[in-house]
């Protein structure tokens, strides 16, 4: 039946003009809602199954981070209900993009109980579980992630760039939390807490593994985007791109393994080896 005939039929049964208008409005609404839904890449129902099998033990069935295995982990599993995520390409305070969330699923988070799902889940399963975990926070329905931060091409690492980075480390007062020797023992280190009130410590940058990734771009992103929900603020307004790259090189130079982790391929290889056993939840 064409919409013209439908309208005629509606008018024939004697509905008032405004009723027909409201009916047409409802149909338009449904069509628009269907268009919005069709833009969702992942299948929420499939995502729920994946979530309950792989994620709920730590992150909890309600996405509150209170799964039975989550209590003993340090850091505690992410509570998804606030839409607050540390590892993002988007500016401070913004929701993450789907790609950011998938990156965490692929890479895992080094040094935490969050392992890599690069091999144990397919891309479709990851996209589905992302669509499902976004239902835990109302923010994803009412807000859009801001545009990802931009970065210039990384200059070559040189001993000079790392040395300049040490000057930037002092200028930006990173030592207030991360300490003079960058060992995570700065003056403000001992009573920091996250958005949930859990104690949190600044990273010991001399350990050699940066949780969000050891690539220059991964480290650069942390300075500019900050880590939502934690005391790590955004330096987007206070650091220049050249200073930020120098600081990246200084931090990389602190790693005992440097320059082992300079390429993404190296990093992937190392992470995949480490997590090829799939799902673990210590």
């Amino acid at each position, binding site marked *: 039946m064409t919409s013209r005939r439908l309208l005629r039929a509606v008018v024939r049964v004697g509905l008032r003009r405004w009723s027909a208008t409201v009916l047409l409005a409802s149909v338009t609404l449904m069509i628009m809602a269907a268009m919005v839904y069709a833009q969702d890449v992942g299948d929420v129902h499939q995502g729920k199954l994946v979530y309950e099998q792989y994620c709920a033990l730590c992150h909890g069935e309600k996405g509150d981070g209170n799964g039975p295995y989550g209590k003993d982990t340090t850091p505690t599993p992410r509570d998804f209900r*606030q839409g*607050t995520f540390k590892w993002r390409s988007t500016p401070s305070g913004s929701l993450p993009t789907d790609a950011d969330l998938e990156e965490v699923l692929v890479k895992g988070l080094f040094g935490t109980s969050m392992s890599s799902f690069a091999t144990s889940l397919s891309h479709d399963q990851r996209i589905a579980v992302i669509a499902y975990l976004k239902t835990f926070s109302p923010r994803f329905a009412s807000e859009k992630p801001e545009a990802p931060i931009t970065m210039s091409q990384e200059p070559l690492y040189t001993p000079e760039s790392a040395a300049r980075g040490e000057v930037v480390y002092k200028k*930006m*007062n990173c030592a207030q939390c991360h300490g003079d020797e960058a060992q995570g023992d700065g*003056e*403000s280190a001992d009573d920091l807490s996250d958005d949930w009130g859990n104690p949190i410590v600044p990273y010991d940058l001399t350990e050699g593994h940066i949780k969000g990734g050891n690539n220059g771009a991964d480290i650069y992103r942390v300075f500019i985007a*900050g880590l939502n929900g934690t005391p790590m603020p*955004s330096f987007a307004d206070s650091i220049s791109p050249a200073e930020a790259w120098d600081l990246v090189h200084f931090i990389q130079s602190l790693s005992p393994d440097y320059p082992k982790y300079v390429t993404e391929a190296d990093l992937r290889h190392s992470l995949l080896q480490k997590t090829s056993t799939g799902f673990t939840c210590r």
Partner: protein
Amino acid sequence: MTIPMKYHRKILSASLISAAFLLAQPVLAEYTVEAVANGGTIEGVVKLSAAAPQIAPIEVTKNQDYCGQSIRNPVYEVGKGGGLQNVEVYLKDITKGKALITDTISLVNEHCMFHPRVQGANVGQLIKISSNDPMLHSTHTQNASTNATIYNVALPFKGFSVTKPLPAIPELIKVKCDAHSWMHAWIWELDNPYFATTGDDGHFTIKDVPPGTYTLVAWHEAAGENPASVTVTVIAGKTVTADIQLTAAKTH
């Protein structure tokens, strides 16, 4: 398929209704700007119902060489006559009146404290955040009810400043400095310009209010009901006094 002309208007109005449904935010009172020719004034003093609780000074645990050993705790600032400072007073659910405020508000980090501690603002205003201290501060803004981070800006050195927008939706914003855990400030971001923060004598004035009956709300970080409110009737060209009493400890 061609749709006959006579249905065009119907389809247009149906689309507009649909669009209105989709754009509707969860029941926020719309505020419409219109000229207020002979508005009234609301003024009053906010006081505590009993003496302010004794609060220990802030024990400074970081950067003592600059911040000192302790800082006077500014939670209950009671002036001469018993007026309470840093109370945000605002009209709730007012739907029309004078233009929104568009200046840039300011939040200064100085001597290891935020200044001012409490202020009001309108949606759409900008905030200039600056530091006069030779150390790292952060201005970590959160939605006071959900704790969700709005943004967390580093102020790494003395003289640094940045101007940023306030959130698009009105809310009570809680501000903290993670590096100095005693530093707190509050920004009441509202959808109407009828607000005031009490001064050091506890006094407030709200001007150019269209005649009518309103709910006047008073919020303090540690005192009163959460929030306390009184009903006020404004008469054209007149000043109405609305003194408010808050209990000394917050009740929820």
